[in-house]
């Protein structure tokens, strides 16, 4: 303490001496130059007289500007609009006034010649809040950002070792007088890494600044407000537009994969237009689909189900609230985490007008296709598939066997093809190159207090099979208006229309199930293929004239016909809009009302033509589903912001109302007279009409209070409580309170941590909080007659209405409690930064669909019946490895590990095997028999004792009782939850070139693979198979050479436990993308009025490392029916700015 005091005194004295010396210098200069010279004086010397009452900061600055030559420069959003100054000063130095303001408004001033640069200050040491720099000789230049190649305004340019400096203007240009050629210029700006350049003989020095990865000044959305990252107490991760855009994905969510610790993002199918699972800190929902674990998405304040419909290029920033202490302010809504999406525009728009165009076109090629059986191999498989089950499995003669297998009478063509090994490549017939493109135009404009932003985008994507694609238009509009000092208003709207064609749900499946001897073509009477003429059922091939079977194997529909004649088209409109009105009656009070609304409408039409599987049995049929969802939120908030000495307070009161309303209607018919897609459902016979519509509405009413308190810039406390009432819960149990408290300790501000290059920043965080969930269908607590039953009395219909589920009159909130410890650090002048978080979250009273005892006559009830724990660790680390004017290289790593366990069910520590839920195990645990090989011929006796035979799948007799039974021999085999995930990104810039590489790894995924269940299903004789090296063939009299296998059973004599074969490790490492960009030199593009032009090539998913044999390990856990093959996308694009 003593030491500090001494230091302060010495520094003050030094400042005084410098100040005096400067004054003397300038005095001399002034005298020498004469009176016509532009006089630049220190704020310490220029005196003013002011009397301000209840003045805003802008008014204060304007007052000074009126009396002096000084001009203030600052970023609008850094200035607290609510601060009000009362100050009287009579003929005293400007500096005195500035220091007074600096105390009140936490600001720092820096005079550079006549420019006074204003910054936010976190510095409790008063004298650091004013700096004066006045100088002499001339260098000019422009500072541009490596991020967007635009000029950077407000960059401090200082001659190293002096206080001599200036700031760049709006375009990033500067003029500075320096002492001599040996001078070194330092360029620094908050949010950017500093640069140093030796002046030498140059008179023009252009500098490119890279964004500073530490970004402590970064503004983070925390729910009903923002905070600087350095003031955060909770666990919040962010991704900016650059991170999102550089990945080149058509879905913003996909771009976050691996980039943010603690968030698992996974594609379920690989199909165009399908959603991603977005999971923060593990799953807490035991039942329900994956979407039940999706977080709350808040786009510009509007709640939406997902952000799939946004154009990634429109997104300015995504902030993800991971821990309960930060989520608690969202109380009821926050239990799966909250994802804030800010679209571009709003208050952050810089002055002037700028236009940017970003576009790319990508070619999507299939990749890493699993090897399937060759015709020869499949023929052998097919033969061997008949041994086990014909003639009781024994003693076929070669002739009998040939008769049985080939069944000459009705399989003549198949026999021919067998003999000629005439195979057909279904991959080749069905798979195509796809494409994707995204073009986005953005116009920003600011003029004083008014700003607007406009974004228009068009995305197009097609899949790797025909009749599958997406078209999307997006329109974004933002405006911001400062009416006067007290009133401010703004509005933001995002509209998107999408058309998604999903084609036939069977197409892909059927294509790869057909065996290689079946071709899509019809035949003539001689059995020769008529290439080009598609045949409905290739496995039931007939001669045209006689109608006799030429092949009689399988009824599978021709996938090419299925693809061409089935449609599943969704046309969707998403619109969100929000407006706010802000009123600052007195300096320390801000009132804000925000009204936001979200609208979703889609029409999903399905149509099956005559030549599809469904059309064949039901006739031409179609259905249309219309869905509309409208929700609005009205938030009224009051903020009290006050700093008293070293105490900073920010107190928030909030009242929020949310109403969600959905309407759904569906109609369908079958047996239509002509093919009109789904555009004439009424053309079908009236007797097949099926009509239905429904309505759903729910309301939430909430109150919240939150206090942020900072002492001395070092000790941070956030405490909040939210009360929520939900219409969906039972009478008397609708309300719940969600408290939270979080503490932060800025260790690096402490004196016992000496200021050094090694430790630039060190902060400890602790958070505790509760969040709730009421994710249950409305009307679950009331016995609602929501199910129609059908009957008739001798042809007179007699409908009935019953409740589908038992109503729960005691349904209440599900509550998650979480503890989070975090450490943020910055080292080596922020060259290394990162954070570590540890958390433990327990979800209690989880609302799940409890299966009821059969005697009740009901299947399910929504009950508060489960307890799930997620705990884990998250690490993120960013390093700036090289930073020179020409070369920068940054890398970032993320690591997340989460352990998920079911703690109790229905109030007891007993597993619910029926539902697959095991106490102490993950929600996603795989529970089954354990594969132990294939019963070999020498083991026949032992096999028989297990009711098995040679060639059957053998599973482990876990309890060694000589029998396999469900109760004792099934075990936890593993879990679909990854044991850990990690991401790595490298960004290298060399001169005008940039090279980015990102990779993502998911480890320890163990899953039942539907793909394998289909393609190594040895109980089937007629479908295509994965190219397995061997399978079991016993010795036989039918002339098929025996084969030993300990991995795959005897075809069609597999035994009962084949499912044990289908569990696979689906861990993987993906190189997500490699992009190479080149920015054209300014000298080239300047002439044509272009500010910045970058061209790039980006390869998505070029390499995947995995042991998984199916289509793509990422969607190994998903449904096989709609899954698609892997692909590699090569994009070419450009970024353009005017």
């Amino acid at each position, binding site marked *: 303490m003593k030491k500090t005091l001494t230091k302060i005194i010495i520094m003050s004295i030094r400042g005084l001496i410098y100040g005096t010396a400067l004054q003397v210098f300038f005095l001399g200069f002034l005298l020498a130059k004469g009176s016509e010279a532009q006089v630049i004086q220190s704020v310490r010397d220029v005196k003013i007289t002011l009397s301000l009452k209840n003045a805003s900061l802008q008014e204060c600055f304007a007052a000074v500007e009126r009396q002096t030559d000084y001009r203030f420069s600052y970023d609008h959003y850094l200035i607290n609009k609510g601060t009000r100054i009362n100050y009287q000063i009579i003929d005293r130095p400007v500096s005195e006034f500035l220091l007074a303001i600096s105390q009140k408004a936490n600001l720092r001033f820096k005079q550079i010649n006549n420019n006074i640069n204003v910054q936010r200050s976190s510095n409790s040491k008063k004298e650091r809040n004013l700096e004066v720099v006045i100088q002499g000789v001339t260098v000019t230049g422009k500072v541009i950002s490596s991020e967007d190649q635009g000029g950077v305004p407000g960059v401090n340019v200082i001659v190293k070792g002096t206080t001599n400096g200036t700031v760049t203007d709006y375009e990033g240009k500067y003029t500075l007088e320096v002492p001599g050629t040996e001078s070194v210029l330092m360029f620094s700006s908050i949010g950017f890494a500093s640069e140093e350049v030796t002046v030498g003989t140059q008179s023009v020095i252009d500098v490119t600044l890279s964004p500073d990865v530490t970004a402590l000044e970064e503004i983070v959305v925390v729910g009903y407000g923002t905070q600087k990252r350095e003031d955060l107490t909770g666990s919040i991760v962010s991704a900016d537009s650059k991170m999102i855009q550089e990945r080149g994905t058509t879905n913003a969510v996909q771009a976050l994969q691996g980039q943010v610790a603690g968030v698992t993002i996974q594609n379920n199918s690989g199909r165009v237009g399908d959603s991603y699972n977005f999971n923060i800190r593990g799953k807490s929902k035991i039942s329900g689909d994956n979407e039940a674990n999706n977080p709350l998405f808040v786009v510009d304040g509007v709640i939406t189900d997902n952000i799939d419909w946004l154009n990634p290029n429109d997104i300015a920033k995504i902030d993800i609230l991971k821990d309960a202490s930060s989520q608690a302010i969202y109380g009821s809504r926050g239990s799966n985490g909250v994802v804030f999406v800010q679209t571009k525009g709003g208050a952050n728009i810089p002055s002037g007008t700028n236009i940017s165009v970003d576009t790319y076109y990508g070619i999507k090629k299939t990749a890493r296709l699993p090897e399937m059986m060759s015709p020869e191999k499949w023929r052998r498989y097919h033969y061997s598939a008949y041994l086990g*089950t014909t003639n009781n499995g024994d003693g076929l003669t070669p002739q009998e066997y040939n008769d049985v297998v080939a069944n000459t009478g009705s399989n003549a063509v198949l026999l021919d093809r067998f003999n000629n090994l005439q195979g057909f490549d279904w991959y080749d017939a069905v798979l195509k190159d796809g494409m994707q493109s995204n073009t986005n135009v953005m116009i920003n404009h600011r003029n004083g207090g008014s700003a607007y932003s406009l974004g228009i985008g068009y995305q197009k994507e097609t899949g790797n099979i025909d009749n599958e694609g997406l078209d999307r238009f997006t329109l974004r509009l933002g405006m911001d208006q400062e009416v006067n000092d007290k009133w401010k208003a703004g509005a933001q709207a995002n509209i998107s229309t999408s058309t998604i064609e999903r084609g036939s749900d069977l197409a892909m499946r059927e294509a790869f199930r057909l065996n290689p001897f079946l071709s899509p073509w019809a035949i003539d009477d001689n059995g020769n293929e008529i290439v080009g003429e598609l045949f*409905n*059922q290739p496995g*039931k091939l007939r001669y045209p004239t006689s109608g006799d079977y030429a092949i009689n194997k*399988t*009824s599978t529909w021709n996938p090419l016909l299925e693809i061409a004649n089935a449609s599943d088209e969704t046309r969707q409109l998403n619109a969100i809009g929000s407006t706010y009105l802000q009123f600052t*009656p007195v300096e320390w009070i801000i009132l804000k009302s925000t009204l936001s609304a979200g609208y979703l409408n889609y029409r999903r039409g399905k149509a099956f033509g005559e030549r599809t*599987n*469904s059309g*064949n*049995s*039901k006739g031409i049929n179609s259905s249309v589903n219309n869905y509309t969802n409208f929700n609005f939120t009205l938030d*009224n908030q*009051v903020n009290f912001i006050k700093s008293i000495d070293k105490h900073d307070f920010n107190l928030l009161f909030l*009242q929020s109302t949310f109403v969600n309303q959905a309407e759904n209607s569906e109609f369908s018919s079958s047996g239509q007279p002509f093919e009109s897609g789904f555009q004439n459902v009424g053309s079908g016979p009236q*007797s*097949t*009409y*099926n009509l239905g*519509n*429904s309505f*759903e*509405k729910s*309301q939430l*009413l909430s109150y919240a209070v939150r206090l942020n308190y900072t002492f001395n810039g070092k000790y941070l406390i956030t405490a909040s409580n939210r009360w929520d*009432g939900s*219409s969906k819960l039972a009478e008397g149990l609708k309300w719940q309170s969600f408290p939270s408290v979080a503490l932060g300790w800025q260790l690096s501000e402490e004196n016992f941590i000496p200021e050094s290059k090694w430790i630039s920043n060190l902060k400890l965080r602790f958070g505790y909080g509760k969040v709730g969930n009421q994710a249950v269908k*409305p*009307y679950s607590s*009331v*016995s*609602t*007659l929501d199910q129609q039953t*059908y*009957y*008739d*009395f*001798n*042809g007179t*219909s*007699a*409908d*009935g*209405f*019953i409740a589908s589920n*038992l*109503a*729960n009159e*005691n349904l209440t909130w599900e509550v998650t409690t979480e503890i989070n410890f975090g450490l943020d650090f910055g080292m080596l002048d922020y060259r290394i930064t990162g954070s570590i978080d540890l958390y433990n979250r327990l979800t209690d009273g989880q609302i799940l669909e409890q*299966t*009821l*005892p*059969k*005697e*009740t*006559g009901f299947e399910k009830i929504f009950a508060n019946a489960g307890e799930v724990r997620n705990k884990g660790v998250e690490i993120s680390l960013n390093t700036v490895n090289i930073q020179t004017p020409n070369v920068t290289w940054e890398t970032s790593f993320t690591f997340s590990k989460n352990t998920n366990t079911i703690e109790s069910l*229905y109030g007891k520590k007993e597993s*619910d095997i*029926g539902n697959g839920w095991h106490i102490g195990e993950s929600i996603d645990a795989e529970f089954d028999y354990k594969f132990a090989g294939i019963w070999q011929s020498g083991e026949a006796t032992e096999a028989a004792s297990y*009711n098995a035979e040679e060639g059957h799948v053998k599973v482990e007799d876990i309890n060694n009782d000589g029998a396999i039974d469900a109760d004792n021999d099934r075990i936890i085999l593993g879990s679909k939850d990854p044991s850990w995930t990690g991401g790595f990104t490298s960004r290298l810039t060399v001169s005008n070139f940039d090279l980015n590489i990102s990779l993502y790894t998911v480890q320890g995924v163990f899953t039942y693979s539907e793909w394998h269940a289909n393609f190594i299903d040895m109980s089937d004789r007629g479908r295509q198979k994965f190219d397995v090296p061997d399978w079991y063939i016993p010795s036989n009299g039918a002339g098929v050479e025996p084969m030993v296998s300990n991995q795959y059973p005897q075809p069609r004599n597999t035994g009962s436990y084949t499912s044990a074969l289908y569990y696979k490790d689906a861990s993987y490492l993906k190189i997500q993308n490699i992009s190479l960009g080149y920015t054209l030199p300014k000298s080239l593009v300047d002439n044509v009025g272009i500010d910045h032009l970058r061209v790039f090539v980006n390869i998505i998913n070029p390499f995947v490392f995995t042991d998984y044999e199916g289509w793509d390990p990422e969607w190994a856990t998903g449904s096989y029916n709609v899954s698609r093959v892997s692909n590699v996308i090569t994009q070419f694009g450009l970024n353009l700015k005017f």
Partner: protein
Amino acid sequence: MKKILYIASLLIISLSGCNDFLEEENKSNVSDAEFYVTEEGFQSLINANYSQLREIFGQDPFLFEAGTDLCAVGEGRGGEPLGLSEYAELTPSSSDVDFLYNNCFKAIQLANTGFKFADIAGATNQQIGELHFFRALSYFYLVQTYGGVTIIDEAINEAVTEFDRNSAQEVYDFVIADFENALANVGDDTYNGQVTKRAVNHFLAKVHLTRAYESFAEASDFSIAASYADAAIAGQALALDFHEIWDPKNDMNVETLFSVQFDPSSTNARLGYLGSQQQNFSGSYLGGSEVKDDAPYKSYNMIATNYALSLFEEGDIRYEGTFMMEVFDRYWDYFDVPRANHGSLNVFYFYEPPWFDAQDSIDYVTAKNPANYRSFGEHDANSGAVSNNYQLIICKKFDDPESIFAADGTNRRTSNRDFILARLAETYLIASEAYLGAGDAGTALDRINEVRGVRGVPDFTSVDIDVILDERGRELFFEYHRWFDLKRTGTLVQRAVAHHPQINDASVFNGNNGELKILRPIPQEALDLNQNKDFQQNPAYN
């Protein structure tokens, strides 16, 4: 300050009325308390009770027919649950064991919901009677299948997780009381789809007959059964030709006492999901969707055993009435072409009847020259045949030629044929069995010969239980009675071992504790979900 007041008042406004704000608004549905108290609402609940019958009957046949002397799995194409058809692997987790347990308890809850609202809704006697009938019918099937189960006589309106077991005797008492209440309340109109007194009499006869074989039988059960059966017959003689009874358009014939109704007017709303699938069973696979319009979908389950076919003698019109002896070019030709013109059609498959001798075969081939001739012994479940299409004889009684082709596993409920639960011929056979049990063999003979007289076969001169069971086999083949008939009469083990091709040894019935696997096990899932861990499994499975 003024402003602060203004803000405060704004907040107060937004706070007030918050109770109203959180009320749920449901525009598309009503609650039970609002709807079931009205006349229309209560009738809709009654309709829902009827609709539940469609879930119990006309769906999976396995608990009703599998593992008996008449039906066995066709070789080569599985799908028939092994446990239920062959007993050795019958466990509480075997597939389909839970079928009646789940569906009957649903029906019971629906009936109890009816009783809950009956008073307020001002239910009619007919409606009260129907509710008693549904509940009794469900418990009757439960007690025969699983033994004693939980008696629930009130609607459940919260998550009850513990249930006790009642004894079989208590359940029978409950069933009889319910049926008697039904009888007292329902009307006596001509059958039009609703429960009538005759139908209730039929079931009361059957309940008493069934209980009569139990250890806790009342001495009078047989004679009470006989008198209820006579009451159900109500003096009506059998008059219809067997073909007429099973004509696809004649489900509502005068001999139907009660049936589960199916009609396009109520099943087209969800094609393939609301109909019956009775027609899909008992026969060879006939091909996939490529045969649509030519043939129905058949699943290769519940194939007639050699014994079932051998029961028929020459002249018995029921053989041709039950089985598709001749398949013409198209399967559906049998129905689409008038019977009188069948003689002119090409025969594609011919399935030889049991009574053919060598000369009959030669005569038939000479006359009809069928493309495929299947000799007797080669087209039944015992033949060990390969699973080729049309390999085995097909039961055609339930075919609906107007149904769409059952495309796949999820929408096979395509038939609009009514599921006949009680018809007059069976009532005669019940009467015969009841009189026999009551010691009146003469009347027993009269009743059974009433059936034989109209089927083209000579009268019996004496009657015993085996004679009656065989006659039931001929008359009621695959009408979802057989397992109950054998279980009731204590002949299950003996007949299954004697005639079911996959059951060759009585030891397959050996369960735990020296008990035979006669009763089905309480489904494992039901035990797992019941938190009363003292709820006993049936001894053979314990």
